[in-house]
Protein backbone atom coordinates (compact mmCIF):
# COMPACT_ATOMS: atom_id res chain seq x y z
CA UNK A 1 0.00 0.00 0.00
CA UNK A 2 3.00 2.28 0.32
CA UNK A 3 3.10 2.44 -3.47
CA UNK A 4 0.01 4.64 -3.74
CA UNK A 5 1.44 8.01 -2.68
CA UNK A 6 4.19 7.84 -5.31
CA UNK A 7 1.68 6.95 -7.96
CA UNK A 8 -0.42 9.89 -6.95
CA UNK A 9 2.48 12.26 -7.30
CA UNK A 10 2.90 11.85 -11.02
CA UNK A 11 -0.33 12.24 -12.83
CA UNK A 12 1.58 14.32 -15.42
CA UNK A 13 0.39 14.00 -18.95
CA UNK A 14 -3.18 13.20 -19.84
CA UNK A 15 -4.97 11.03 -17.29
CA UNK A 16 -5.73 7.54 -18.58
CA UNK A 17 -9.00 7.19 -20.39
CA UNK A 18 -11.91 6.46 -18.08
CA UNK A 19 -10.53 8.51 -15.21
CA UNK A 20 -12.65 11.58 -15.59
CA UNK A 21 -10.76 13.76 -13.15
CA UNK A 22 -7.49 15.51 -13.77
CA UNK A 23 -4.67 15.12 -11.30
CA UNK A 24 -5.48 18.00 -9.00
CA UNK A 25 -9.15 17.26 -8.64
CA UNK A 26 -8.37 13.58 -8.29
CA UNK A 27 -6.09 14.29 -5.40
CA UNK A 28 -8.72 16.53 -3.88
CA UNK A 29 -11.39 13.86 -4.20
CA UNK A 30 -9.01 11.35 -2.72
CA UNK A 31 -8.31 13.61 0.24
CA UNK A 32 -12.02 14.30 0.73
CA UNK A 33 -12.78 10.59 0.75
CA UNK A 34 -10.13 9.92 3.33
CA UNK A 35 -11.45 12.72 5.52
CA UNK A 36 -15.01 11.41 5.22
CA UNK A 37 -13.84 7.96 6.27
CA UNK A 38 -11.91 9.37 9.19
CA UNK A 39 -14.88 11.48 10.27
CA UNK A 40 -17.09 8.38 10.19
CA UNK A 41 -14.61 6.57 12.37
CA UNK A 42 -14.50 9.46 14.79
CA UNK A 43 -18.29 9.51 14.99
CA UNK A 44 -18.03 6.48 17.26
CA UNK A 45 -15.93 8.51 19.66
CA UNK A 46 -18.30 11.45 19.38
CA UNK A 47 -21.36 9.31 20.11
CA UNK A 48 -19.74 7.67 23.13
CA UNK A 49 -18.71 11.04 24.54
CA UNK A 50 -22.21 12.39 23.92
CA UNK A 51 -23.76 9.39 25.68
CA UNK A 52 -21.54 9.88 28.70
CA UNK A 53 -21.99 13.65 28.89
CA UNK A 54 -25.71 13.92 28.17
CA UNK A 55 -26.83 11.11 30.44
CA UNK A 56 -24.55 12.19 33.31
CA UNK A 57 -25.87 15.70 33.00
CA UNK A 58 -29.47 14.55 33.21
CA UNK A 59 -28.58 12.21 36.06
CA UNK A 60 -26.91 15.04 37.97
CA UNK A 61 -29.85 16.29 40.06
CA UNK A 62 -30.70 12.86 41.46
CA UNK A 63 -27.08 11.95 42.13
CA UNK A 64 -26.42 15.29 43.86
CA UNK A 65 -29.56 14.86 45.92
CA UNK A 66 -28.82 11.33 47.05
CA UNK A 67 -25.02 11.31 47.00
CA UNK A 68 -23.53 7.93 47.76
CA UNK A 69 -26.92 6.88 49.10
CA UNK A 70 -27.97 6.35 45.52
CA UNK A 71 -26.02 3.11 45.34
CA UNK A 72 -25.99 2.18 49.03
CA UNK A 73 -29.60 2.94 49.90
CA UNK A 74 -32.24 0.31 49.32
CA UNK A 75 -35.35 2.46 49.69
CA UNK A 76 -36.83 3.52 46.35
CA UNK A 77 -39.79 5.77 47.00
CA UNK A 78 -40.46 8.17 44.10
CA UNK A 79 -43.47 9.71 45.89
CA UNK A 80 -41.21 11.17 48.59
CA UNK A 81 -38.16 11.63 46.35
CA UNK A 82 -36.02 8.97 48.01
CA UNK A 83 -33.92 7.04 45.54
CA UNK A 84 -31.71 4.20 46.70
CA UNK A 85 -30.96 1.83 43.85
CA UNK A 86 -29.25 -0.93 45.83
CA UNK A 87 -32.18 -3.33 45.49
CA UNK A 88 -32.07 -2.97 41.71
CA UNK A 89 -28.30 -3.25 41.51
CA UNK A 90 -28.42 -6.45 43.54
CA UNK A 91 -31.37 -7.63 41.44
CA UNK A 92 -29.37 -7.15 38.26
CA UNK A 93 -26.51 -9.14 39.76
CA UNK A 94 -28.80 -11.92 40.99
CA UNK A 95 -30.55 -12.31 37.65
CA UNK A 96 -27.27 -12.18 35.73
CA UNK A 97 -25.76 -14.78 38.05
CA UNK A 98 -28.71 -17.13 37.54
CA UNK A 99 -28.56 -16.58 33.79
CA UNK A 100 -24.84 -17.34 33.72
CA UNK A 101 -25.17 -20.39 35.96
CA UNK A 102 -27.73 -21.84 33.56
CA UNK A 103 -26.33 -20.65 30.24
CA UNK A 104 -22.59 -21.20 30.63
CA UNK A 105 -22.50 -25.01 31.00
CA UNK A 106 -25.08 -25.36 28.24
CA UNK A 107 -23.19 -22.99 25.93
CA UNK A 108 -19.89 -24.78 26.52
CA UNK A 109 -21.69 -28.05 25.83
CA UNK A 110 -23.15 -26.80 22.57
CA UNK A 111 -19.81 -25.30 21.51
CA UNK A 112 -18.10 -28.65 22.18
CA UNK A 113 -20.87 -30.41 20.30
CA UNK A 114 -20.38 -28.16 17.30
CA UNK A 115 -16.60 -28.30 17.22
CA UNK A 116 -15.91 -31.91 18.33
CA UNK A 117 -18.88 -34.17 18.90
CA UNK A 118 -21.47 -33.51 16.22
CA UNK A 119 -21.98 -35.61 13.14
CA UNK A 120 -22.02 -33.37 10.08
CA UNK A 121 -25.78 -33.36 9.61
CA UNK A 122 -26.62 -32.60 13.23
CA UNK A 123 -24.06 -29.83 13.33
CA UNK A 124 -25.80 -27.91 10.58
CA UNK A 125 -29.18 -28.29 12.27
CA UNK A 126 -27.72 -27.16 15.59
CA UNK A 127 -26.22 -24.09 13.95
CA UNK A 128 -29.68 -23.24 12.62
CA UNK A 129 -31.17 -23.68 16.09
CA UNK A 130 -28.61 -21.38 17.66
CA UNK A 131 -29.08 -18.81 14.88
CA UNK A 132 -32.80 -18.95 15.46
CA UNK A 133 -32.38 -18.53 19.20
CA UNK A 134 -30.29 -15.44 18.49
CA UNK A 135 -32.85 -14.08 16.04
CA UNK A 136 -35.88 -14.17 18.37
CA UNK A 137 -36.46 -10.59 19.60
CA UNK A 138 -36.13 -10.12 23.34
CA UNK A 139 -39.67 -8.83 23.70
CA UNK A 140 -40.98 -12.12 22.26
CA UNK A 141 -38.98 -14.04 24.87
CA UNK A 142 -40.57 -11.76 27.44
CA UNK A 143 -44.08 -12.32 26.10
CA UNK A 144 -43.61 -16.09 26.16
CA UNK A 145 -42.00 -15.97 29.58
CA UNK A 146 -44.82 -13.90 31.01
CA UNK A 147 -47.82 -15.69 29.54
CA UNK A 148 -46.60 -19.27 29.09
CA UNK A 149 -43.52 -20.02 31.16
CA UNK A 150 -44.27 -18.16 34.41
CA UNK A 151 -47.70 -19.70 35.17
CA UNK A 152 -46.34 -23.17 34.37
CA UNK A 153 -43.01 -23.01 36.16
CA UNK A 154 -44.55 -21.77 39.40
CA UNK A 155 -45.59 -25.38 40.03
CA UNK A 156 -41.98 -26.47 39.67
CA UNK A 157 -40.96 -23.73 42.10
CA UNK A 158 -43.65 -24.91 44.54
CA UNK A 159 -42.29 -28.43 44.41
CA UNK A 160 -38.68 -27.33 44.87
CA UNK A 161 -39.66 -25.02 47.74
CA UNK A 162 -41.49 -27.86 49.50
CA UNK A 163 -38.53 -30.17 49.01
CA UNK A 164 -35.86 -27.85 50.40
CA UNK A 165 -38.05 -26.53 53.24
CA UNK A 166 -35.99 -28.17 56.05
CA UNK A 167 -32.57 -27.33 54.63
CA UNK A 168 -31.09 -24.07 56.08
CA UNK A 169 -29.69 -21.60 53.45
CA UNK A 170 -31.55 -23.31 50.61
CA UNK A 171 -34.98 -22.60 52.10
CA UNK A 172 -34.13 -18.90 52.03
CA UNK A 173 -32.95 -18.95 48.42
CA UNK A 174 -35.70 -21.21 47.18
CA UNK A 175 -38.64 -20.19 49.36
CA UNK A 176 -42.33 -20.39 48.50
CA UNK A 177 -43.10 -18.62 45.23
CA UNK A 178 -45.98 -16.17 44.97
CA UNK A 179 -46.35 -15.94 41.21
CA UNK A 180 -44.17 -17.31 38.48
CA UNK A 181 -42.79 -13.82 37.91
CA UNK A 182 -39.50 -13.87 39.76
CA UNK A 183 -35.74 -13.49 39.66
CA UNK A 184 -35.42 -17.10 38.64
CA UNK A 185 -37.86 -16.87 35.72
CA UNK A 186 -36.03 -13.78 34.49
CA UNK A 187 -32.76 -15.69 34.87
CA UNK A 188 -34.09 -18.57 32.77
CA UNK A 189 -35.25 -16.25 29.99
CA UNK A 190 -31.97 -14.32 30.01
CA UNK A 191 -30.06 -17.61 29.94
CA UNK A 192 -31.85 -18.53 26.71
CA UNK A 193 -31.00 -15.14 25.29
CA UNK A 194 -27.27 -15.16 26.08
CA UNK A 195 -26.70 -18.81 25.10
CA UNK A 196 -26.16 -18.02 21.39
CA UNK A 197 -23.53 -15.35 22.01
CA UNK A 198 -21.59 -17.38 24.60
CA UNK A 199 -21.81 -20.45 22.35
CA UNK A 200 -20.52 -18.74 19.23
CA UNK A 201 -17.68 -16.97 21.06
CA UNK A 202 -16.63 -20.19 22.78
CA UNK A 203 -16.79 -22.10 19.53
CA UNK A 204 -14.53 -19.57 17.86
CA UNK A 205 -12.00 -20.17 20.64
CA UNK A 206 -12.30 -23.96 20.38
CA UNK A 207 -11.73 -23.77 16.66
CA UNK A 208 -8.36 -22.08 17.18
CA UNK A 209 -6.94 -25.12 19.02
CA UNK A 210 -4.15 -26.47 16.79
CA UNK A 211 -5.06 -29.77 15.15
CA UNK A 212 -1.64 -31.09 16.10
CA UNK A 213 -2.47 -30.90 19.79
CA UNK A 214 -5.73 -32.73 19.35
CA UNK A 215 -4.06 -35.39 17.24
CA UNK A 216 -1.34 -35.74 19.86
CA UNK A 217 -4.01 -36.45 22.46
CA UNK A 218 -5.67 -39.00 20.17
CA UNK A 219 -2.29 -40.63 19.53
CA UNK A 220 -1.80 -41.09 23.26
CA UNK A 221 -4.99 -43.12 23.28
CA UNK A 222 -7.19 -40.46 24.85
CA UNK A 223 -10.95 -40.81 24.72
CA UNK A 224 -12.80 -37.89 23.18
CA UNK A 225 -13.49 -36.37 26.57
CA UNK A 226 -9.86 -36.79 27.61
CA UNK A 227 -8.82 -35.08 24.40
CA UNK A 228 -11.17 -32.20 25.23
CA UNK A 229 -9.80 -31.89 28.75
CA UNK A 230 -6.18 -32.33 27.78
CA UNK A 231 -5.96 -30.40 24.53
CA UNK A 232 -8.94 -28.10 24.12
CA UNK A 233 -9.66 -26.70 27.59
CA UNK A 234 -6.08 -25.73 28.52
CA UNK A 235 -5.71 -23.93 25.22
CA UNK A 236 -9.07 -22.16 25.44
CA UNK A 237 -9.32 -21.24 29.11
CA UNK A 238 -8.94 -17.48 28.86
CA UNK A 239 -11.10 -17.31 25.74
CA UNK A 240 -13.83 -19.19 27.56
CA UNK A 241 -13.67 -16.77 30.50
CA UNK A 242 -13.83 -13.88 28.05
CA UNK A 243 -16.92 -15.36 26.42
CA UNK A 244 -18.58 -15.73 29.82
CA UNK A 245 -17.82 -12.12 30.70
CA UNK A 246 -19.27 -10.88 27.41
CA UNK A 247 -22.37 -12.96 28.14
CA UNK A 248 -22.54 -11.32 31.56
CA UNK A 249 -22.38 -7.87 29.95
CA UNK A 250 -25.23 -8.84 27.65
CA UNK A 251 -27.32 -10.21 30.53
CA UNK A 252 -26.87 -7.09 32.64
CA UNK A 253 -28.02 -4.80 29.87
CA UNK A 254 -30.94 -6.95 28.74
CA UNK A 255 -34.06 -5.00 29.44
CA UNK A 256 -37.36 -5.94 27.99
CA UNK A 257 -37.59 -9.65 28.71
CA UNK A 258 -36.54 -9.06 32.30
CA UNK A 259 -38.97 -6.15 32.65
CA UNK A 260 -41.84 -8.46 31.72
CA UNK A 261 -41.07 -11.48 33.88
CA UNK A 262 -39.18 -10.23 36.93
CA UNK A 263 -42.28 -9.16 38.86
CA UNK A 264 -41.30 -5.53 39.51
CA UNK A 265 -40.97 -5.13 43.24
CA UNK A 266 -38.20 -3.13 44.81
CA UNK A 267 -36.96 -5.45 47.53
CA UNK A 268 -33.48 -6.26 48.68
CA UNK A 269 -33.79 -10.02 48.90
CA UNK A 270 -32.10 -13.30 48.08
CA UNK A 271 -35.41 -15.08 47.61
CA UNK A 272 -34.86 -16.30 44.04
CA UNK A 273 -38.43 -17.51 43.53
CA UNK A 274 -39.79 -14.18 44.75
CA UNK A 275 -40.46 -11.15 42.62
CA UNK A 276 -37.80 -8.50 42.40
CA UNK A 277 -36.50 -5.93 39.98
CA UNK A 278 -33.39 -5.16 37.98
CA UNK A 279 -31.84 -1.90 36.83
CA UNK A 280 -32.72 -1.99 33.13
CA UNK A 281 -36.21 -3.32 33.89
CA UNK A 282 -36.91 -0.48 36.34
CA UNK A 283 -35.95 2.10 33.73
CA UNK A 284 -38.24 0.50 31.15
CA UNK A 285 -41.18 0.13 33.53
CA UNK A 286 -41.06 3.46 35.37
CA UNK A 287 -39.67 5.97 32.88
CA UNK A 288 -42.95 6.60 31.08
CA UNK A 289 -44.80 7.75 34.17
CA UNK A 290 -41.94 9.53 35.86
CA UNK A 291 -41.10 13.21 36.14
CA UNK A 292 -38.67 15.57 37.80
CA UNK A 293 -36.24 13.97 40.20
CA UNK A 294 -37.66 10.49 39.60
CA UNK A 295 -36.82 10.74 35.91
CA UNK A 296 -33.35 12.01 36.74
CA UNK A 297 -32.89 9.08 39.12
CA UNK A 298 -33.83 6.65 36.34
CA UNK A 299 -31.33 8.23 33.95
CA UNK A 300 -28.76 7.91 36.75
CA UNK A 301 -29.58 4.21 36.87
CA UNK A 302 -28.75 4.07 33.16
CA UNK A 303 -25.41 5.76 33.86
CA UNK A 304 -24.55 3.25 36.60
CA UNK A 305 -25.61 0.36 34.36
CA UNK A 306 -23.54 1.74 31.50
CA UNK A 307 -20.50 1.99 33.77
CA UNK A 308 -21.01 -1.56 35.03
CA UNK A 309 -21.31 -3.07 31.54
CA UNK A 310 -18.24 -1.15 30.35
CA UNK A 311 -16.18 -2.55 33.22
CA UNK A 312 -17.39 -6.09 32.53
CA UNK A 313 -16.74 -5.80 28.78
CA UNK A 314 -13.27 -4.34 29.34
CA UNK A 315 -12.35 -7.19 31.66
CA UNK A 316 -13.69 -9.64 29.07
CA UNK A 317 -11.54 -8.14 26.34
CA UNK A 318 -8.50 -7.96 28.55
CA UNK A 319 -8.81 -11.67 29.34
CA UNK A 320 -9.87 -12.91 25.92
CA UNK A 321 -7.40 -10.68 24.09
CA UNK A 322 -4.53 -12.45 25.80
CA UNK A 323 -5.46 -15.83 24.34
CA UNK A 324 -4.89 -14.69 20.82
CA UNK A 325 -1.45 -13.28 21.38
CA UNK A 326 -0.29 -15.89 23.87
CA UNK A 327 -1.70 -18.84 21.98
CA UNK A 328 1.45 -20.20 20.31
CA UNK A 329 3.40 -20.05 23.55
CA UNK A 330 0.70 -21.85 25.46
CA UNK A 331 0.60 -24.49 22.80
CA UNK A 332 4.21 -25.44 23.35
CA UNK A 333 3.96 -25.68 27.10
Amino acid at each position, binding site marked *: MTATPTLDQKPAGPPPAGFGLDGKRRRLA*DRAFKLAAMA*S*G*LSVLAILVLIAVSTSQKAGPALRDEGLGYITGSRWAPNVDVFGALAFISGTMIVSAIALALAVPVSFGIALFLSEFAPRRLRQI*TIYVIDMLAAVPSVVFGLWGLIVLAPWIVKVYDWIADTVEPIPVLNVLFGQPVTGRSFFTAGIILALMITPIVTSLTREVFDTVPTGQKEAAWA*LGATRWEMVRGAIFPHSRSGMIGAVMLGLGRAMGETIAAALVIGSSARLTLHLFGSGDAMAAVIANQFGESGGLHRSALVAMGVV*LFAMTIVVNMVARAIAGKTVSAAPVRGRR
Partner: protein
Amino acid sequence: MTAPAPVRAPLDLTATNVQRARRVRNGLATAFVYGSVLVAAIPLGFLLLYVIKKGAGVVDLDFLTKDIPIVSRLPGPGMGPAIAGTLLITLAATLMAVPLGILAAVYVTEYGQGSKLAGAIRFLSDVMAGVPSIVMGLFIYTIWVLSFGQSAFAGALALGALMLPIVIRSTESMLRLVPNALREGSAALGASKSRMIMTVVLPAALPGITSGSLLAVARAAGETAPLLFTIGAARHVNLDIFAGSNAALSTQIFANAQQPFLGAQDRAWGAALTLIVLVLVLTVVARVISRRFTLR
Protein backbone atom coordinates in the same frame (compact mmCIF):
# COMPACT_ATOMS: atom_id res chain seq x y z
CA MET B 1 2.01 -30.20 25.91
CA THR B 2 -0.35 -30.97 28.72
CA ALA B 3 -0.59 -34.71 29.12
CA PRO B 4 -4.05 -36.18 28.84
CA ALA B 5 -5.29 -38.25 31.73
CA PRO B 6 -4.18 -41.71 30.50
CA VAL B 7 -0.51 -40.83 30.93
CA ARG B 8 -0.96 -41.16 34.67
CA ALA B 9 -1.17 -44.89 34.09
CA PRO B 10 -2.60 -47.07 36.83
CA LEU B 11 -0.10 -49.44 38.39
CA ASP B 12 -2.37 -52.37 37.83
CA LEU B 13 -2.31 -52.43 34.08
CA THR B 14 -4.61 -55.40 33.81
CA ALA B 15 -7.41 -53.71 35.68
CA THR B 16 -10.15 -53.47 33.12
CA ASN B 17 -12.25 -51.35 35.44
CA VAL B 18 -9.87 -48.46 34.88
CA GLN B 19 -10.65 -48.64 31.22
CA ARG B 20 -14.30 -48.83 32.10
CA ALA B 21 -14.07 -45.69 34.24
CA ARG B 22 -12.59 -43.82 31.32
CA ARG B 23 -15.29 -45.08 29.02
CA VAL B 24 -18.00 -44.12 31.48
CA ARG B 25 -16.56 -40.64 31.91
CA ASN B 26 -16.41 -40.24 28.15
CA GLY B 27 -20.00 -41.45 27.88
CA LEU B 28 -21.17 -39.01 30.54
CA ALA B 29 -19.43 -36.13 28.81
CA THR B 30 -20.97 -37.09 25.48
CA ALA B 31 -24.39 -37.29 27.07
CA PHE B 32 -23.87 -33.86 28.63
CA VAL B 33 -22.84 -32.35 25.31
CA TYR B 34 -25.83 -33.80 23.47
CA GLY B 35 -28.06 -32.87 26.39
CA SER B 36 -27.04 -29.23 26.31
CA VAL B 37 -28.13 -28.96 22.69
CA LEU B 38 -31.52 -30.33 23.71
CA VAL B 39 -31.74 -27.97 26.68
CA ALA B 40 -31.38 -25.02 24.31
CA ALA B 41 -33.52 -26.45 21.52
CA ILE B 42 -36.55 -27.52 23.58
CA PRO B 43 -37.55 -24.11 25.00
CA LEU B 44 -36.94 -22.58 21.57
CA GLY B 45 -39.23 -25.19 20.03
CA PHE B 46 -41.96 -24.50 22.60
CA LEU B 47 -41.63 -20.77 22.11
CA LEU B 48 -41.84 -20.94 18.32
CA LEU B 49 -44.74 -23.40 18.44
CA TYR B 50 -46.62 -21.16 20.82
CA VAL B 51 -46.01 -18.02 18.79
CA ILE B 52 -47.11 -19.77 15.61
CA LYS B 53 -50.15 -21.40 17.22
CA LYS B 54 -51.35 -18.24 18.96
CA GLY B 55 -50.27 -15.86 16.23
CA ALA B 56 -51.65 -17.76 13.25
CA GLY B 57 -55.16 -17.48 14.69
CA VAL B 58 -54.85 -13.71 14.84
CA VAL B 59 -52.85 -12.65 11.80
CA ASP B 60 -54.93 -11.98 8.70
CA LEU B 61 -55.22 -9.13 6.22
CA ASP B 62 -57.24 -6.99 8.65
CA PHE B 63 -54.66 -7.54 11.36
CA LEU B 64 -51.85 -6.45 9.06
CA THR B 65 -53.56 -3.32 7.78
CA LYS B 66 -56.09 -1.97 10.30
CA ASP B 67 -55.43 0.66 12.94
CA ILE B 68 -54.63 -0.23 16.53
CA PRO B 69 -57.89 -0.25 18.55
CA ILE B 70 -58.45 2.47 21.12
CA VAL B 71 -59.86 0.14 23.75
CA SER B 72 -57.22 -2.47 24.32
CA ARG B 73 -59.64 -4.70 26.26
CA LEU B 74 -61.58 -5.63 23.12
CA PRO B 75 -60.46 -8.36 20.77
CA GLY B 76 -59.92 -7.70 17.08
CA PRO B 77 -57.35 -6.33 14.69
CA GLY B 78 -54.98 -4.68 13.97
CA MET B 79 -51.34 -3.81 13.89
CA GLY B 80 -51.03 -1.88 10.61
CA PRO B 81 -49.47 1.27 12.09
CA ALA B 82 -46.99 -0.80 14.10
CA ILE B 83 -45.87 -2.73 11.02
CA ALA B 84 -45.50 0.47 9.02
CA GLY B 85 -43.68 2.08 11.95
CA THR B 86 -41.25 -0.80 12.42
CA LEU B 87 -40.39 -0.82 8.71
CA LEU B 88 -40.04 2.96 8.59
CA ILE B 89 -37.92 3.29 11.71
CA THR B 90 -35.68 0.37 10.80
CA LEU B 91 -35.21 1.69 7.26
CA ALA B 92 -34.29 5.15 8.51
CA ALA B 93 -31.87 3.66 11.05
CA THR B 94 -30.29 1.53 8.32
CA LEU B 95 -29.83 4.51 5.99
CA MET B 96 -27.97 6.32 8.76
CA ALA B 97 -25.94 3.54 10.32
CA VAL B 98 -24.87 1.40 7.37
CA PRO B 99 -23.06 4.04 5.23
CA LEU B 100 -21.47 5.55 8.33
CA GLY B 101 -20.41 2.14 9.61
CA ILE B 102 -18.96 1.05 6.26
CA LEU B 103 -16.96 4.28 5.93
CA ALA B 104 -15.68 3.93 9.48
CA ALA B 105 -14.59 0.35 8.75
CA VAL B 106 -12.91 1.55 5.54
CA TYR B 107 -10.94 4.03 7.59
CA VAL B 108 -9.88 1.40 10.10
CA THR B 109 -8.79 -1.20 7.55
CA GLU B 110 -7.68 0.82 4.52
CA TYR B 111 -6.26 4.04 5.90
CA GLY B 112 -5.43 3.49 9.50
CA GLN B 113 -3.60 0.19 9.40
CA GLY B 114 -1.51 0.05 12.52
CA SER B 115 -2.20 3.66 13.45
CA LYS B 116 -3.17 4.60 16.98
CA LEU B 117 -6.35 6.32 15.84
CA ALA B 118 -7.60 3.25 13.99
CA GLY B 119 -6.82 1.10 17.01
CA ALA B 120 -8.74 3.53 19.21
CA ILE B 121 -11.74 3.48 16.85
CA ARG B 122 -11.79 -0.33 16.86
CA PHE B 123 -11.64 -0.36 20.62
CA LEU B 124 -14.35 2.28 20.98
CA SER B 125 -16.68 0.45 18.62
CA ASP B 126 -16.22 -2.60 20.85
CA VAL B 127 -17.16 -0.45 23.83
CA MET B 128 -20.14 0.93 21.94
CA ALA B 129 -21.31 -2.56 21.06
CA GLY B 130 -21.55 -3.22 24.79
CA VAL B 131 -23.78 -0.24 25.58
CA PRO B 132 -27.11 -1.62 26.85
CA SER B 133 -29.96 -0.87 24.47
CA ILE B 134 -31.99 0.87 27.17
CA VAL B 135 -29.09 3.29 27.69
CA MET B 136 -29.21 4.13 23.96
CA GLY B 137 -32.88 4.95 24.48
CA LEU B 138 -32.10 7.21 27.44
CA PHE B 139 -29.32 8.86 25.44
CA ILE B 140 -31.53 9.76 22.48
CA TYR B 141 -34.24 10.83 24.91
CA THR B 142 -31.92 13.35 26.57
CA ILE B 143 -30.28 14.75 23.44
CA TRP B 144 -33.18 14.62 20.97
CA VAL B 145 -36.61 13.94 22.42
CA LEU B 146 -36.32 16.61 25.14
CA SER B 147 -35.82 19.27 22.47
CA PHE B 148 -37.65 17.94 19.42
CA GLY B 149 -40.26 15.57 20.77
CA GLN B 150 -40.98 11.93 20.06
CA SER B 151 -40.94 10.77 16.45
CA ALA B 152 -39.95 7.89 14.23
CA PHE B 153 -36.69 9.72 13.58
CA ALA B 154 -35.79 9.73 17.28
CA GLY B 155 -36.37 5.97 17.35
CA ALA B 156 -34.27 5.58 14.22
CA LEU B 157 -31.43 7.52 15.86
CA ALA B 158 -31.47 5.14 18.82
CA LEU B 159 -31.60 2.03 16.61
CA GLY B 160 -28.93 3.44 14.32
CA ALA B 161 -26.63 4.00 17.29
CA LEU B 162 -27.15 0.35 18.25
CA MET B 163 -26.46 -0.87 14.72
CA LEU B 164 -23.38 1.24 14.08
CA PRO B 165 -20.81 -0.83 16.00
CA ILE B 166 -22.20 -4.10 14.59
CA VAL B 167 -21.89 -2.78 11.03
CA ILE B 168 -18.35 -1.53 11.71
CA ARG B 169 -17.22 -4.84 13.16
CA SER B 170 -18.71 -7.03 10.44
CA THR B 171 -17.59 -4.76 7.58
CA GLU B 172 -14.10 -4.61 9.04
CA SER B 173 -13.76 -8.37 9.14
CA MET B 174 -15.03 -8.64 5.55
CA LEU B 175 -12.60 -5.99 4.28
CA ARG B 176 -9.75 -7.92 5.87
CA LEU B 177 -10.67 -10.91 3.71
CA VAL B 178 -10.15 -8.98 0.47
CA PRO B 179 -6.83 -10.22 -0.98
CA ASN B 180 -4.08 -7.63 -1.07
CA ALA B 181 -3.32 -8.59 -4.66
CA LEU B 182 -6.53 -6.86 -5.71
CA ARG B 183 -5.45 -3.64 -4.01
CA GLU B 184 -1.98 -3.84 -5.53
CA GLY B 185 -3.40 -4.54 -8.98
CA SER B 186 -5.60 -1.50 -8.74
CA ALA B 187 -2.75 0.69 -7.53
CA ALA B 188 -0.56 -0.58 -10.37
CA LEU B 189 -3.15 0.63 -12.84
CA GLY B 190 -2.75 4.09 -11.40
CA ALA B 191 -6.02 4.29 -9.51
CA SER B 192 -6.12 6.66 -6.60
CA LYS B 193 -6.77 5.16 -3.20
CA SER B 194 -10.36 6.32 -2.97
CA ARG B 195 -11.03 4.93 -6.44
CA MET B 196 -9.41 1.64 -5.49
CA ILE B 197 -11.65 1.41 -2.43
CA MET B 198 -14.81 2.31 -4.31
CA THR B 199 -14.28 0.19 -7.40
CA VAL B 200 -12.20 -2.76 -6.18
CA VAL B 201 -12.17 -3.31 -2.43
CA LEU B 202 -15.79 -2.57 -1.54
CA PRO B 203 -17.30 -4.50 -4.49
CA ALA B 204 -15.14 -7.51 -3.62
CA ALA B 205 -16.40 -7.45 -0.05
CA LEU B 206 -19.96 -6.48 -0.91
CA PRO B 207 -21.71 -9.81 -0.22
CA GLY B 208 -20.14 -10.06 3.22
CA ILE B 209 -20.89 -6.45 4.02
CA THR B 210 -24.49 -6.88 2.89
CA SER B 211 -25.08 -9.96 4.99
CA GLY B 212 -23.43 -8.41 8.04
CA SER B 213 -25.54 -5.29 7.66
CA LEU B 214 -28.71 -7.32 7.24
CA LEU B 215 -27.97 -9.12 10.49
CA ALA B 216 -27.59 -5.74 12.17
CA VAL B 217 -30.90 -4.64 10.64
CA ALA B 218 -32.60 -7.81 11.87
CA ARG B 219 -31.27 -7.20 15.34
CA ALA B 220 -32.47 -3.59 15.30
CA ALA B 221 -35.93 -4.47 13.98
CA GLY B 222 -36.60 -6.59 17.05
CA GLU B 223 -35.36 -4.06 19.59
CA THR B 224 -37.82 -2.59 22.06
CA ALA B 225 -35.92 -0.76 24.76
CA PRO B 226 -34.50 2.05 22.56
CA LEU B 227 -37.97 2.80 21.19
CA LEU B 228 -39.87 2.96 24.50
CA PHE B 229 -39.13 6.62 25.22
CA THR B 230 -38.39 7.82 21.72
CA ILE B 231 -41.32 7.09 19.40
CA GLY B 232 -44.35 7.54 21.64
CA ALA B 233 -47.52 5.63 20.84
CA ALA B 234 -49.68 6.14 17.77
CA ARG B 235 -52.80 4.27 16.72
CA HIS B 236 -52.80 5.43 13.11
CA VAL B 237 -50.24 5.06 10.38
CA ASN B 238 -47.81 7.98 10.53
CA LEU B 239 -45.48 8.17 7.55
CA ASP B 240 -43.93 11.47 8.60
CA ILE B 241 -40.74 10.37 10.26
CA PHE B 242 -39.84 13.75 11.73
CA ALA B 243 -43.11 14.69 13.35
CA GLY B 244 -45.68 13.06 15.53
CA SER B 245 -45.52 9.87 17.54
CA ASN B 246 -45.29 6.53 15.82
CA ALA B 247 -45.81 2.85 16.58
CA ALA B 248 -43.63 -0.25 16.40
CA LEU B 249 -44.35 -3.97 16.65
CA SER B 250 -41.91 -4.48 19.51
CA THR B 251 -43.32 -1.73 21.72
CA GLN B 252 -46.85 -2.93 20.92
CA ILE B 253 -45.94 -6.45 22.08
CA PHE B 254 -44.45 -5.00 25.25
CA ALA B 255 -47.55 -2.93 26.01
CA ASN B 256 -50.10 -5.59 25.11
CA ALA B 257 -48.32 -8.42 26.92
CA GLN B 258 -48.83 -6.59 30.20
CA GLN B 259 -52.58 -6.23 29.68
CA PRO B 260 -54.74 -8.70 31.56
CA PHE B 261 -57.20 -8.87 28.63
CA LEU B 262 -57.15 -11.75 26.20
CA GLY B 263 -57.90 -9.45 23.27
CA ALA B 264 -54.74 -7.46 23.93
CA GLN B 265 -52.68 -10.58 24.53
CA ASP B 266 -53.87 -12.02 21.21
CA ARG B 267 -52.72 -8.89 19.47
CA ALA B 268 -49.36 -9.30 21.22
CA TRP B 269 -49.06 -12.86 19.86
CA GLY B 270 -50.03 -11.72 16.37
CA ALA B 271 -47.48 -8.91 16.51
CA ALA B 272 -44.88 -11.38 17.82
CA LEU B 273 -45.47 -13.72 14.87
CA THR B 274 -45.24 -10.83 12.42
CA LEU B 275 -42.03 -9.57 14.00
CA ILE B 276 -40.40 -13.00 14.12
CA VAL B 277 -41.23 -13.62 10.47
CA LEU B 278 -39.78 -10.23 9.56
CA VAL B 279 -36.59 -10.85 11.52
CA LEU B 280 -36.22 -14.41 10.24
CA VAL B 281 -36.63 -13.33 6.62
CA LEU B 282 -33.84 -10.77 7.09
CA THR B 283 -31.65 -13.35 8.82
CA VAL B 284 -32.20 -16.02 6.19
CA VAL B 285 -31.55 -13.59 3.33
CA ALA B 286 -28.33 -12.56 5.08
CA ARG B 287 -27.24 -16.20 5.46
CA VAL B 288 -28.06 -17.02 1.84
CA ILE B 289 -26.10 -14.02 0.59
CA SER B 290 -23.09 -14.83 2.72
CA ARG B 291 -23.16 -18.50 1.72
CA ARG B 292 -23.66 -17.86 -2.01
CA PHE B 293 -20.97 -15.28 -2.41
CA THR B 294 -18.46 -16.11 0.25
CA LEU B 295 -14.98 -14.76 -0.46
CA ARG B 296 -12.38 -17.43 -0.06
